């Protein structure tokens, strides 16, 4: 009764379901102060559940017909990431050599470690390629995934999980190991767990936050250049 045919066959269904459920989850997160949980993490299973348990009455294609309009906005949203990069330009300028070398090291180690780990634990080619950009911010990661032959939606899920793991454990692990340099910590967090991880720097240090913000954008650029170059080499080696 909530889902009459006339609604299901219009883009209103996919657009409406996405926006309404997302805003509802945002309200829940705010109401119960679940700040570590991004609304996405609640909204995603809810919508998946509705489609999954109402099938065959509701099909994925009916949802996608409207959802594609929202998905399209990821393009301009990715372009928009230039703004935080621009706003942190002074931090970038002051620490250029350290940041650039750190981002390159993080990206190379990331690609190699994901490849070796994935192979070791028996991930298939498609899944392995979907995991490669997991440390990059979601919209860029999905783009990279489709360029190198992964599954963009699986990449999105891996990116979110990486970010949640990072925002929960990064600072604990680093302080347990005795690291204190804010530049090093901010850069490593931005490069390993993108915006979700970096958001945990908010109440730690402004420098960490700024460096993390720069690292997010630069890691996206570095991964999209280095992944297509390193993957053939790694495939030959292993």
């Amino acid at each position: 009764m909530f889902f009459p045919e006339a609604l299901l066959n219009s883009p209103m269904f996919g657009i409406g379901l996405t926006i309404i459920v997302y805003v509802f989850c945002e309200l829940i997160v705010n109401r119960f102060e679940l700040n570590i949980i991004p609304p996405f993490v609640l909204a995603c299973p809810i919508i998946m559940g509705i489609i999954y348990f109402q099938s065959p009455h509701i099909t994925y294609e009916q949802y996608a017909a409207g959802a594609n309009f929202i998905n399209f906005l990821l393009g301009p949203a990715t372009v928009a990431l230039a703004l935080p990069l621009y706003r942190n330009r002074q931090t970038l300028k002051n620490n250029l050599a350290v940041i650039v070398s750190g981002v390159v090291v993080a990206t190379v180690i990331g690609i190699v470690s994901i490849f070796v780990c994935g192979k070791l634990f028996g991930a298939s080619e498609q899944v392995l390629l979907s995991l490669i950009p997991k440390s990059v911010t979601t919209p860029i990661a999905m783009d990279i995934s489709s360029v190198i032959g992964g599954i963009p939606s699986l990449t999105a899920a891996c990116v979110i999980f990486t970010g949640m793991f990072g925002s929960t454990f990064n600072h604990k692990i680093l302080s347990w190991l005795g690291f204190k340099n804010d530049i090093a910590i901010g850069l490593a967090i931005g490069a390993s767990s993108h915006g979700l991880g970096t958001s945990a720097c908010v109440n730690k240090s402004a420098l960490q936050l700024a460096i993390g913000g720069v690292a997010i954008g630069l890691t996206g650029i570095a991964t999209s250049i280095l992944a297509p170059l390193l993957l053939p080499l790694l495939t030959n080696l292993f």
Partner: protein
Amino acid sequence: MTAGSILRGIAILLALQWVSVLFLQALHIAFPPALLGMILLAVLLLTGVIREESVEDACTILIEKMGMLFLPAGISMLLYLDIIKAESIAIFITIIVSSLIILITTTAFVELVSKHSKGGKH
């Protein structure tokens, strides 16, 4: 924040993405167009061709609500449930192990480099 400033910002973002698609197609380069758009916008902001005020409202909205924008992508996992179920252990272990490796080696590397280059600025 006004309706006009948001719309103008979105027009700029779309125009940059449009140009990026054209450029990459013409040169047959496999590179994410939106990412090239991001690099273009960063360059145009740094050189002062585009002023921060022209794009900041649109950028702020899109970035703040980005979680909603990738919901459709997350939900398309429904199409790949079989693969994900079959390989979930490999996926989780790879994410956790490689996250730890990246985090620790990068912190150690940067700490080492900044100690040697500046003798500890902090």
